[in-house]
């Protein structure tokens, strides 16, 4: 390897390892928190931190944009010194989003057990409204479900969506705690962007909104008959980095559930299994010159 090749490899590695994935994770968690607090404060004059969280999201967006500019500048430099044309290691954002969160420190031995979750019935009620599937009859002594890993839950839900089984989707959603379910809205956006990019054959752009809408709306609606149409529209607009439609306030569960179903629909369109959403899975083969037709079933 020549000195110049070595410099090029080092710069590519630096560019690939820029923390775009972590910034995306932070941004989506902040969005999810904002959505939830906004719902809580709907009729209150107390801002409960919502404007500050809005500022935080904006700063995270600017940081993500600055990182992309840095990557572009490194690519431009490599091209200027005659080292252009070598692809990087691909989009890592979705892998970062699906990595399991660090385990929290174990509580001290004499600590009281954590209080049971108080949002279980609130979550199940909305899941029933969205899916049309009633929660299973609860056993009187059944404990509230514990915290589930969001990535694992997403894979499970996407598997149910692929099979088109609304009853299974309802059961899977009823079986998790509200906090586990709500966490889905933070892990899905980079996954959706990646899958949409694979379906379209290029990075999703604002003018792809119509194509993605026609490729997904029917199937999402059949699985979530109670979901307000604006939720899917907003998700697709975000995937395409297009302005999201202005609209009425939606329930915080809507975005989490709809985004998970959309993930499963996109996987089905791509003919991929839910296990391909493993951050350790090898990169699926991409055929840049042969974009799939989003209107057709894969």
């Amino acid at each position, binding site marked *: 390897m020549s000195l110049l090749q070595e410099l090029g490899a080092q710069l590519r590695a*630096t560019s690939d390892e820029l923390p775009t994935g972590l910034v995306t994770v932070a941004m989506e*968690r902040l969005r999810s928190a904002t959505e939830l*607090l906004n719902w809580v404060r709907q009729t209150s004059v107390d801002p409960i931190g919502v404007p500050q969280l809005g500022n*935080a999201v904006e700063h995270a967006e600017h*940081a993500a944009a600055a990182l992309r500019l840095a990557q572009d500048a490194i690519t431009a430099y490599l091209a200027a010194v005659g080292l252009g044309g070598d692809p990087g290691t691909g989009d890592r954002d979705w892998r970062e989003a699906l990595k399991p969160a660090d385990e929290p420190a174990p509580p001290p031995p004499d600590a009281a057990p954590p209080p049971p979750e108080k949002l279980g019935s609130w979550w199940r009620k909305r899941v029933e409204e969205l899916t049309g599937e009633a929660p299973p009859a609860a056993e009187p002594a059944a404990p509230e479900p514990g915290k589930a890993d969001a990535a694992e839950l997403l894979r499970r839900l996407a598997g149910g969506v692929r099979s088109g089984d609304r009853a299974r989707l309802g059961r899977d959603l009823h079986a998790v705690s509200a906090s586990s379910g709500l966490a889905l809205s*933070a892990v899905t956006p980079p996954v959706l962007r990646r899958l949409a990019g694979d379906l379209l054959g290029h990075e999703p752009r604002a003018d792809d909104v119509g194509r993605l809408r026609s490729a997904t709306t029917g199937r999402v609606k059949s699985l979530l008959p109670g979901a307000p149409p604006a939720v899917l529209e907003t998700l697709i607009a975000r995937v395409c980095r297009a302005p999201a439609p202005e609209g009425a306030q939606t329930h915080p569960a809507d975005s989490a559930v709809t985004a998970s179903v959309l993930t499963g629909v996109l996987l089905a369109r791509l003919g991929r299994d839910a296990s391909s959403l493993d951050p350790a899975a090898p990169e699926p083969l991409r055929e840049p010159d042969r974009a799939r037709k989003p209107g057709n079933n894969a």
Partner: protein
Amino acid sequence: MASVAEVRAAVDAALQQVAESQAAIQAAREKLGEAQQSLAAALDGSANDAVGAAHTSLSQADQQLEECLGATLLAVEQAQTYTATL
């Protein structure tokens, strides 16, 4: 019908998401610092405009992340003050 316990639980769930975002921001800033050092070492002495642009963008990213973290701290404080009044 909603109860104080439910409102508090919803705010707590939101604050949990904020805490996870704060951890991600801190990890991102650490990685960014390493990238800045690596870039400075590799491109020391370069007068190429793209190199200056890369350094500037990385500094801006770090500054934005710092301000993002500051905004989340204010948000958490305000939300906790609110739940204390419930």
